[in-house]
């Protein structure tokens, strides 16, 4: 996660940043679950939809690596090619957990 960029993007907007951290913590496991179910059922549009939302929110939170992984998953869903999907979703799971950990650290230090 690019902390400098994140703080620049949310300059004077710390309450909003805290709110978004909460949203991310709530929606990421749900959307990852959607991706996994899509992979199990061979449902490309479902993978693409959930991965697209993850890509959008992770990019807004200055997490380019996680957003890129979500983007790759989105493309695999759109193409209906699931050979790398399992590996990608595991990587995304780890990367988004790391983003969440960094965000928690950051928000602890924020004086709202």
């Amino acid at each position, binding site marked *: 996660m690019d902390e400098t960029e994140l703080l620049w*993007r949310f300059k004077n907007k710390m309450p909003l940043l805290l709110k978004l951290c909460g*949203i991310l913590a709530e929606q990421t496991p749900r959307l990852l679950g959607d991706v996994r179910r899509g992979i199990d059922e061979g449902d490309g549009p479902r993978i693409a939809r959930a991965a*697209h939302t993850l890509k959008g*929110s992770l990019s*807004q939170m200055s997490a380019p690596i996680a957003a890129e992984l979500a983007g790759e998953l989105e493309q695999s869903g759109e193409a209906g090619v699931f050979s790398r999907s399992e590996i990608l979703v595991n990587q995304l799971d780890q990367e988004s957990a790391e983003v969440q950990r960094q965000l928690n650290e950051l928000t602890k230090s924020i004086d709202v």
Partner: protein
Amino acid sequence: MKVLVAEDDLTSSSILEDHLRDWGYSPIIVSNGREALQVLKTPSAPDLAILDWMMPYLSGLELCQAVQGLNKPIPPYLILLSAKSHKPEVVRALQAGAHDYITKPFDPAELHARVDVGRRIVQLELLLGQRVAELETVKQLLAVHPICCSCGKAWHNQHDWREPIDSGASENDANVLHALCPECYAKVSSILELKSLRAA
């Protein structure tokens, strides 16, 4: 000014809502294309809309096309928001009816500037609409042929009062307006004045 935000990602819609309020706009948030179209169909619909490309039921692209089909006299200014940043996608969006395009993650200052451009264009279009309506009124007034109901003279070429034969207007003309020429007006006024003095 009201701004419609159609975005299914709660992170992006929360950021947009917060910024728009800071910039003095009144955001209306919906989470899919169908709801957005419903809002845009109402008589008091926002003049400006920020639409996500990928949304449930109706995509931002389809929404742009649907809005064009509404044939509003002053169509809303549409900014399409998307993570898709390739040139062909930008072209597709603009061809579908979007007025502007911005990629996610957006830079708040850039978005602010683009939303303000949209506001200025909407205001100019509203002003233009008012001016056209005013011109229509003037055109209607120019088409009116006033005829003096006392002496029968007609107002000629927006210039002077002439005998009806010269004016091109007749009593049967649909645009005839019964009036008093200045000469007859003066006569009538003096008679009325005299009458009121006698009565007193």
